[in-house]
């Protein structure tokens, strides 16, 4: 079953990320579980790619592999045509649970990656300030993480990733735990920051409307073993809103494709219980 590929002309840039034949197999004693079937994927520079799929389709695993935090069983990841080996400051993953450091304040969190790189104190302080301003948190730069709201934490995490000027942002269901208003605002902010910084973004979500709201392209992944089932180009004008009828319509189309995979996932879960 070949995936139907529709690449929109608007994002025809050079290749930024190439995922070549990535598979992931978990071995537990005699049991083998294929989490990812060979996945091939190209993301162009400056593209906003969304991946949707039922839980257990391996979309998070794929993101961790691209980030270099998980090893694939086979295949390789190329960034700007260069093969990657392990994590690197050229692609930063934003975790669902964020992983902000509670022992550091907002500015120190944003500086963390720069400090690891060995950037001089003064320079990294300036750089951190700039990105904290970009996510509108200047007033809070000396606050500790527990003093921030959920949406603010998301923005700190975004600033911490952007401060490294990575080129590739990998986002793993970042807005799932937020209330609707905060999420809407963060969609706007993310879109603005994406336009301003020219990042290439892979955004994993289980919310199809969110994917249509944000993405240039939406990929539907199948339930275990994960593979790319279908791709959709989203050629709606930006900036979109979750409530736009066109967004809803497109989401319906994608959801139709996704439904059978969700049913499979649910069925598998029940049969295990």
């Amino acid at each position, binding site marked *: 079953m070949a995936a139907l590929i529709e690449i929109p002309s608007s994002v025809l840039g050079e290749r930024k990320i190439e995922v070549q034949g990535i598979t992931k197999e978990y071995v537990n004693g005699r049991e083998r579980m294929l989490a990812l079937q060979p996945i091939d994927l190209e993301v162009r520079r400056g593209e906003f790619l969304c991946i949707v799929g039922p839980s257990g389709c391996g979309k998070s695993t794929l993101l961790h592999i691209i980030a270099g935090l998980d090893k694939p069983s086979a295949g390789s990841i190329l960034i700007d045509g260069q093969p990657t080996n392990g994590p*690197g400051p050229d692609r930063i993953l934003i*975790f669902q649970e964020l*992983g*902000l450091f509670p*022992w550091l304040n907002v500015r120190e969190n944003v500086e*963390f990656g720069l400090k690891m790189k060995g950037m001089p104190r003064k320079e990294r302080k300036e750089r951190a300030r700039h990105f904290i301003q970009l996510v509108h948190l200047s007033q809070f730069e000396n606050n500790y993480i*527990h*003093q921030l709201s959920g949406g603010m934490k998301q923005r700190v995490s975004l600033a911490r990733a952007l401060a490294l000027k990575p080129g590739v942002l990998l986002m793993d269901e970042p807005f799932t735990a937020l209330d609707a208003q905060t999420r809407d605002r963060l969609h706007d902010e993310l879109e603005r920051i994406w336009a301003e910084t020219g990042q290439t973004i892979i955004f994993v979500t289980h919310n199809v409307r969110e994917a249509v709201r944000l993405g240039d392209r939406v990929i539907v992944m199948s339930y275990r073993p994960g593979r790319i089932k279908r791709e959709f180009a989203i050629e709606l004008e930006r900036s979109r809103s979750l409530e736009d009828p066109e967004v809803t319509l497109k989401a319906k189309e994608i959801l139709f494709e996704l439904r059978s995979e969700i049913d499979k996932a649910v069925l598998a879960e029940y049969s295990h219980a």
Partner: protein
Amino acid sequence: MRKVLRQVAFYAGLLAIWELVVLLKLWPPYLFPTPYSVFESLRSGFSDHSFWIGIGVSMKRVAIGYAISCVLGVALGFLTAYSRFLSETLGRLLVSLQSIPSICWLPVAILWFGLTEKAILFVVVMGSLLAITISVESGLRSIPKIYPMAGQNLGASGWKLIIHVLLPASLPHLISGLKQGWAFAWRSLISGEMIFVTLGLGQLLMMGRDLNDISQVFAVMLLIIALGWLIDAIFFRGMERALRRRWGFATT
């Protein structure tokens, strides 16, 4: 403020009950001292410098022994947390050794080191090292995986990961382990000093017994409690407060 008042009232009440028991003459005064005679004992102990010397000697010993325990304990904690082999072998051994009261190390210490300072330091180290090692290990094991993962993602690896992520992430456990280690070190020292006669608070305590001076015994016990509390209040309470301010644990 009200908390302080309540505490003052509690201790005043305690003193009053003590005085009352003395007045009831249940026991002869050489078995049960009056608050005043204990106070007198404290005063004379400080004015003839014997208490100052005892405090000085004991504090120096516990400081050296505890410092050795901290360094060794943190290192051993890291080794057992990150080496499966060491945790299954050394780690198990350490847990079982913890059931030995620290004073049991004294005969070994005296045979190995003779009646020297080294023997008493050995007892202090053996008394506190295990508690520190075990809590460092469990602290490191309980670090949420997300922290080292986020650290690696942002470019930390090797030593940088240990210093900038793993150590600070384990700090809540580490501090409670160090605090526990301190309490163990202090107790081991005093019990060691009681048997092993050279200057120090433990020896002053035994001297009180030898002289049949119950007031001195009470006075030295008060000193031991006060010093243990003081160190806890100055170092550990402060660290815990700083930690809470950053991490935002529920304040107690």
